[in-house]
């Protein structure tokens, strides 16, 4: 069975290259180029960072350990949450798994989902972890075997994170099922399961935050007493003792410090933790089939007399005209899309981590009256770029695929008596205010720790807003110009050639904006920003015009690129 499934996965990859081979090879080449570029950038970033840390002998060891702990915890959270969302829907929502669940080998599905989640989580290893370990090799002299063992410990951590989330899903499902039997009322459905798991993730996040980050950095590093450097490392180590990533951080740290036995010791701990979680997961697969069966049940509607349990007073009242009806439809479909909302929450969660770091820094700055002017202008630019990155990620996940996601329902809108341009405007009117609101939040919180003058703040905000408008229009227009009706999976759509085009386009555009902001803040040059705003306006209008032209001639069939 495993061989068959592996062969099936290979066939799927082969099938991708059967049609539109050139386009897909270009996509692959672009991916490799982007991944390599990012990897190289991450490598140099870490080389620079590690060298900087090393130039301060008093802090070198403590800051290195602290960086590893925080950095690995961040990667762990990324892997765990993305695995949670993808696994939840892969386990219970995909109708194409029916055939597998009808066979005696049904228990293999959690294993297949685990393997898929693991491979999907490998990208942080390739883009972020490997370059950072190579940087540690260059700067700290981390030797080859310890480097490989460190990498192995991070692979264990990835398996640990993905299997932990699968285990959490099965345990929660089992608990809801038990509760349902106990009080004779069904609580087990996908919505309740997602809510319970979100509560679990939320409180887990708070616990991790409280345990590791609600701290006074100055006290933690003992920065006010430069005579006692020895105890700082152990204090940081103690601070992260209960973090699931602590053994990996310690393994790398010990290897780096030349303590090979210590490194192997912590790698073994990580390995044992992984084995324990995998064992529990294996035991929990017993619960999988009953949970799956319950979650496949629809509402029993064969009876002629059914008591309507829906207590809603009225159905959603549609708009007075076609445009408002379409706008309300966007709101309704988006607000009831559990998977979309979970991904939205995931992106917001990552952003909140950044906000949390900002708040922690501002708290420490305020407490110790640190001169804010010490913050270089590049920090402002980085904040601006981070905001653009988040908006691009949101647009790539939600706005860009929104035309292609109408794949199966396109008959409704395209057979209705209305101009197709109305579909475009309704989507724009739905997404633009939403992302401008998120933009205000991001912009405001990013400026919290920056001591910008009123003029500079206004310029930053105007630039940020115009960039958001351009990026939303760019995503929506590219989605309308290049609809892909072969799939309605946003993660697949985002990695198509137009999706990559959007990523490159939006990030390049944001980078130009950031560079102009830098010029303005350092040399007080204003006219390039004005030119940028005018060109953005023209570009936005042009994109809308082109998108509407393509939409007018769009056919809702597969194999259209």
């Amino acid at each position: 069975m495993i061989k068959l499934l592996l062969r099936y996965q290979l066939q799927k990859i082969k099938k991708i290259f059967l049609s539109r081979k050139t386009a897909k090879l270009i996509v692959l080449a672009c991916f490799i180029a982007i991944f390599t570029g990012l990897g190289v950038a991450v490598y140099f970033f870490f080389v620079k960072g590690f060298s900087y840390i090393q130039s301060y002998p008093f802090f070198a060891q403590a800051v290195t350990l602290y960086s590893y702990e925080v950095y690995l915890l961040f990667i762990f959270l990324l892997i765990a949450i993305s695995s949670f969302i993808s696994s939840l829907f892969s386990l219970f929502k995909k109708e194409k798994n029916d055939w597998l669940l009808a066979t005696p080998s049904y228990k293999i599905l959690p294993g297949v989902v685990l393997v898929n989640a693991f491979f999907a989580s490998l990208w942080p290893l390739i883009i972020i972890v490997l370059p950072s370990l190579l940087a540690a090799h260059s700067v700290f002299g981390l030797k080859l075997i310890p480097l490989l063992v460190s990498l192995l410990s991070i692979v264990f951590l990835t398996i640990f994170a993905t299997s932990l989330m699968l285990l959490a899903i099965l345990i929660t499902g089992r608990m809801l099922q038990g509760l349902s039997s106990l009080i004779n009322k069904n609580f087990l459905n996908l919505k309740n399961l997602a809510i319970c798991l979100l509560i679990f993730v939320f409180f887990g996040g708070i616990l991790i935050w409280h345990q590791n980050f609600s701290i006074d950095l100055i006290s933690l590093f003992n920065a006010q007493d430069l005579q006692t450097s020895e105890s700082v490392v152990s204090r940081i180590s103690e601070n992260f003792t209960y973090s699931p990533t602590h053994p990996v951080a310690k393994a790398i740290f010990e290897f780096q410090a030349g303590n090979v036995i210590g490194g192997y010791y912590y790698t073994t701990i990580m390995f044992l933790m992984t084995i324990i979680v995998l064992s529990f997961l294996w035991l929990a697969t017993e619960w999988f089939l009953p949970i799956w069966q319950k979650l496949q049940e629809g509402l029993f509607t064969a009876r002629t007399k059914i008591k309507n349990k829906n207590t809603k007073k009225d159905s959603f009242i549609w708009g007075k005209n076609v445009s408002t009806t379409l706008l309300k439809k966007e709101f309704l479909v988006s607000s009831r899309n559990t998977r979309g909302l979970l991904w939205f929450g995931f992106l917001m969660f990552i952003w909140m981590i950044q906000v949390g770091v900002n708040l922690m820094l501002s708290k420490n700055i305020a407490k110790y009256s640190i001169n804010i002017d010490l913050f270089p202008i590049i920090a402002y630019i980085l904040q601006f770029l981070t905001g653009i990155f988040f908006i691009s990620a949101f647009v790539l996940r939600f706005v860009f695929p929104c035309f292609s996601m109408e794949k199966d329902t396109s008959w409704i809108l395209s057979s209705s008596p209305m101009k197709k341009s109305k579909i475009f405007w309704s989507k724009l009117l739905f997404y633009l205010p939403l992302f401008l609101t998120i933009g205000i939040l991001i912009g405001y919180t990013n400026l919290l720790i920056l001591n910008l003058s009123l003029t500079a703040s206004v310029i930053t905000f105007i630039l940020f807003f115009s960039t958001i408008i351009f990026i939303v229009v760019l995503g929506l227009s590219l989605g309308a110009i290049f609809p892909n009706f072969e799939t309605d999976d946003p993660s697949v759509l985002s990695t198509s050639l137009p999706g990559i085009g959007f990523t490159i386009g939006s990030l390049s555009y944001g980078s130009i904006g950031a560079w102009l902001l830098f010029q303005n803040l350092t040399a007080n040059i204003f006219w390039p920003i004005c030119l940028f705003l005018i060109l953005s306006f023209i570009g936005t209008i042009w994109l809308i015009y082109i998108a509407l032209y393509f939409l007018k001639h769009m056919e809702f069939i597969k194999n259209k690129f």
Partner: protein
Amino acid sequence: MSAILKITNLTKYFNSIKAVNNINLKIEEGGIFSIIGPNGSGKTTIIKSIAGLLRQDKGNITINGLDTTHHPIKTKSNIGYIPDKPEIWSSITGEEFLYLMGSLYGMKKETIQKNIPLSLKIFNLAGIEKNYYEDYSRGNKQKFTILSALLHQPKLLLVDEPIVGLDPVSAEIAQNKFLNFTKNGGAILLATHDLSVATNISKTIGVLSQGKLITTGSFKELKNKAKLSKNAKLKDVYKKLT
């Protein structure tokens, strides 16, 4: 009687493949035209071209005398479309779907509110209209799409596989509803594999093969063309002609 649907030289290519080849047909008020043919013969492509989901490469389609290419909004207002796959957004309710369709076809809110309960009675769907679409069975999904196509009282009904997934009683109700629709002056173009439906309700049957309408006529005329006995069934005609 005036022609509600008139197709002239309709041709559609998918890349180099001629999916629909020079089709000509006409349906008048009260007419039901069934297209039968093997898988991939072009039935759905014809229906989708009329509904405006595909753009023809050659030929004209007129509805009530108006060309669909030049007057897409006016012509679509007169069409009710029932697709082969009754897929809609999974997280809206059946009732919301009917509201949405009524609004998209320019119906007044009061009219929609008045018509929905009457529509729900047709298939005995009252009581489940506030459930999410993803919770419906295949048959109930199909029933809601049939109701949505009839809600705005179109002139032409385009039906792609009308009774797939319907239980026998509901299938009979659907067929009766189609017959009543034509009695009130409507016209139906129906694409189906179910030969019993074509025999029961169609006045004209067209046999499609590799994108070409190879013959049209009443069931009796088709039997004559196929040189089959009076007792022959449509299945025999179909086998002989395709």
